[in-house]
């Protein structure tokens, strides 16, 4: 359902053509329609699916735009929709405004062959570790990141542990020596 915004036919998920779920999204739609691939409003939360090429521009705009003022990046997390899915990966940006106290989720979807997306460390510096974590566990490559190394797993770890095709117990016992 909400996880597959591409297949909106026959599902109750409101797409961008339907009534805008919030004044913020409606205003953004007027301002920059090219940044909005889809809008998902479910469970009281709004998700905007942003084309991969536009994520940095959208983030820097939303950070300072008087309507939104998303000056606080709460979280970035990756997700694997499943081995057969295409696009397979998604990166979720959870935005928060310290003055307006509203939240928004931006979503970028990535295919398995090309897991590159531009880094938003230039917009919020806190993105640094979040992006390293997503790179470490999903293999999403953030172009322009100043220090894209593994963060939780060891440097010489093979594979990306939170991908669905990575077995729960790993491939072989990991040795520290």
């Amino acid at each position, binding site marked *: 359902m909400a996880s597959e915004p591409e297949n909106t036919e026959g599902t109750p998920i409101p797409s961008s053509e339907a009534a805008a779920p919030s004044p913020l999204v409606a205003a953004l739609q007027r301002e920059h329609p090219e940044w909005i691939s889809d809008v998902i409003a479910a*469970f009281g939360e709004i998700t905007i699916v942003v084309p991969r090429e536009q994520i940095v521009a959208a983030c820097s705009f939303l950070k300072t735009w008087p309507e939104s003022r998303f000056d606080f990046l709460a979280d970035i997390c990756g997700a694997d929709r499943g081995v057969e899915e295409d696009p397979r990966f998604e990166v979720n940006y*959870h935005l928060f405004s310290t003055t307006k*106290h509203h939240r928004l989720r931006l979503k970028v979807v990535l295919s398995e062959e090309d897991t590159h997306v531009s880094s938003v460390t230039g917009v919020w510096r806190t993105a640094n570790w979040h992006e390293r974590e997503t790179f470490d566990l999903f293999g999403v490559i953030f172009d322009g990141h100043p220090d894209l190394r593994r963060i939780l797993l060891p440097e010489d770890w093979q594979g990306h542990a*939170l991908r669905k095709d990575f077995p729960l117990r790993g491939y072989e016992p990991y040795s520290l020596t």
Partner: protein
Amino acid sequence: MSSAPNIPPQFEIVDRPLDTQMTISMGPQHPSTHGVLRLELVLDGEMVIKTTPDIGYLHTGMEKLFEYKKYQQGIVITDRMDYLNPLGNNLAYCMAAEKLLGLEIPERAQTIRVLMCELQRIASHLVWLGTHALDIGAMTVFFYCFREREKILNLIEAASGGRLTPSYFRIGGLMMDLPAGFERRCKQFLEAFPAAVDEFHTLLSGNRIFQKRTQGIGRISAEDAIDWGLSGPCLRGSGVNLDIRRANPYCSYENYDFEVPTEPDGDVWARYMVRMREMKESHKISAQALSRLKPGPVKADAPKVVLPDREAMKSHMDALIHHFLIVAEGFDVPAGEVYQPIEASKGELGVYIRSDGGSKPSRVHFRGPSFVNLSALPVMAEGEMVADVVAIIGSLDIVLGEIDR
């Protein structure tokens, strides 16, 4: 020979005796890093030029494990993340699942959740205070803090059976109602606690050494703090008045009367004062919650999600069937994704759950406040002395179990 005749030239006084930089490794077994954290420090003499935190020593792949466990089995994993604030983790996870399920939580359960979370916040702050003071060299405070924390752990044990890993909250309510006599014991504790906080102040706040070690150390401005995603007492220590309990209220926090303490300076002392004042506010909220406890159900009316009562199982066939199905197969959660933030003792704890519609989540992600707060350590430690790094780490109140997950 230009210097005075009695001093050989190689012993002339210079400002920087070692004109070289030195890289040292602090941790992972350093006692003041509160777990297994390694810092790579580049030093010029005793001054810190660059700090590179190295984490992951406690990584146990919890987020992967969630995908293989049913929703209700995930609760016990959350206990082990931030092990000083397990009830906060329980709450965030349960609330995220409840959001997906669309469950309405009864008032009594909400009030008990608030009460227990605020007691847990005090307990978490007490561990912070004890270890922070210990790091700086004040041994006594540690014992006083753990004495008070013991009383809270006894209360949590009375309610849930667990001290460090209570797993008291369930999706749809609570594990069980409070035991008989809990309110009296809780009242006893709450009556005595403000005096204990004053005691901590006399031990520490007026101490000249403690003040010298904390004031003006590890400064971060409000703009930087927001940019680095600091949350909780670390953010409020930089003068930003932001508390998720106020900004995005949950568990009817909007009905409680409490202040959000802030301090403008952004140094170790400011973060210390914010937490000290926060303990009093948490005490205030706990007392209000305790006075609002009214008899009522503590589990939501959702027989397919919430385990039935023992008594009902003995007399009602459908209760027995539901019990069997929930335990054996779990319950299906509607497909979708949610992000549920709460104000944990260390800052914004966010839980992202993505469901495919089955009885196991497709993805669970924790936005740990310690993880994000630690990422700003290099900014605060730059230009400080090595010994101050210890004070700064203490003021961040990190728990490595949550950072590494």
